[in-house]
């Protein structure tokens, strides 16, 4: 299973859109995909017409009583989406209380990693949508994944969130004593605006090795797909946004191949 976290310590940068877009494109290839909603806002959960306020079970429950190791219980929490082959591990708004509930308990950052170890043979990909703040949920996402994707809006204020995210990532890597590759993805790019162009240029200067060389453009088709509860590629497989995500997916997969080969060679 390939596990990718989509994270940025700034809101509104396109995290949920990235998860849904990549998930839809993976399903198009026939991959078995698990989408994971770690954000208490439950945007990903709502996308598929589930209500984070009224769901009876969610990721929240896996944090208690060792349920993250209970294969049958985990399967009870997982929900289907509109597309065959894509499932959802949903959020409920109770996730917002988790920080307080598990405060001071050792090892609470590893619950999702243990959950995914139970599901290893069931999915080809797991994509994790994360909250924009540093806390137990974001740490779970970083500890569980093999690659971090950082969508970053092409506007000046987003650079601070990006800097903070990269710093947090380095601290988690230090604590876990491992390397975690990351890819910065410029999003909401509007080539007509000076702000988008200058921010993209700055990003290229600051993060030359980790920045994806293309950008996800602003595309109203994303909003239309969300309104219909469809994956963007189901709504319009040739839209500018979907085409950009298709390129991104190819880039991420080839980076994973290289990583896999270099690990195998060791």
């Amino acid at each position, binding site marked *: 299973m390939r*596990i990718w976290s989509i994270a940025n310590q700034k809101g509104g940068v396109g995290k949920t859109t990235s998860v849904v877009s990549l998930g839809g494109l993976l399903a198009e290839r026939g991959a078995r995909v698990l989408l994971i909603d770690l954000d208490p806002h439950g945007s990903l959960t709502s996308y598929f017409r589930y209500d984070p306020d009224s769901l009876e079970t969610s990721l929240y429950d896996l944090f208690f009583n060792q349920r993250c190791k209970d294969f049958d219980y985990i399967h009870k929490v997982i929900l289907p989406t509109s597309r065959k082959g894509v499932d959802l591990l949903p959020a409920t708004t109770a996730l917002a209380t988790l920080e307080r509930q598990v405060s*001071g308990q*050792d*090892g*609470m*950052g*590893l619950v999702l*990693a243990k959950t995914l*170890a139970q599901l*290893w*043979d069931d999915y080809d990909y797991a994509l994790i949508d994360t909250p924009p703040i*540093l806390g*137990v949920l974001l*740490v779970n996402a970083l*500890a569980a994944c*093999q690659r971090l994707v950082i969508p970053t809006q092409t506007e000046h204020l987003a650079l601070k969130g990006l800097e903070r995210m990269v710093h*947090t990532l380095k*601290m*988690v890597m*230090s*604590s*876990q*004593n*491992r390397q975690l590759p990351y890819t910065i993805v410029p999003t909401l790019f509007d080539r007509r605006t000076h702000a988008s162009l200058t921010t993209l240029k700055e990003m290229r200067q600051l993060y030359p090795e980790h920045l994806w060389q293309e950008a996800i453009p602003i595309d109203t088709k994303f909003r239309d797909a969300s309104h219909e509860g469809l994956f963007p590629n189901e709504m319009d497989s040739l839209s500018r946004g979907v085409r950009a995500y298709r390129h991104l997916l190819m880039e991420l997969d080839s980076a994973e191949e290289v990583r896999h080969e270099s690990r195998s060679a060791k």
Partner: protein
Amino acid sequence: MSPDQPNNQTRIAGYLDMLLVDHSVWDEKLSLAINPPVRPLDTVASGHYLLTTETFGSGHRIVKYTHLLNSLSLLNQLPSSRLKSEVLHRCSPLAEAMLCD
């Protein structure tokens, strides 16, 4: 602020160490070494379960040391086997070095 007072960096580092320390991991690795894994775990490389002691896991050094020593003591209680002997042989010098550290 005095140099002894924690700053944001040390507060966050302590928080991460607390969230990411895994008391069960050594037992899991021990179990994996004795019963080969039925599914791959990303943190476990084939054939390297007990030989990654110096770099394994998260948390403070003393926590890692405690896990190693606990695991060796558990290992001692298991029936004799070639694997047990091999692991004890390889880990004993490290455990001795830890006790002297």
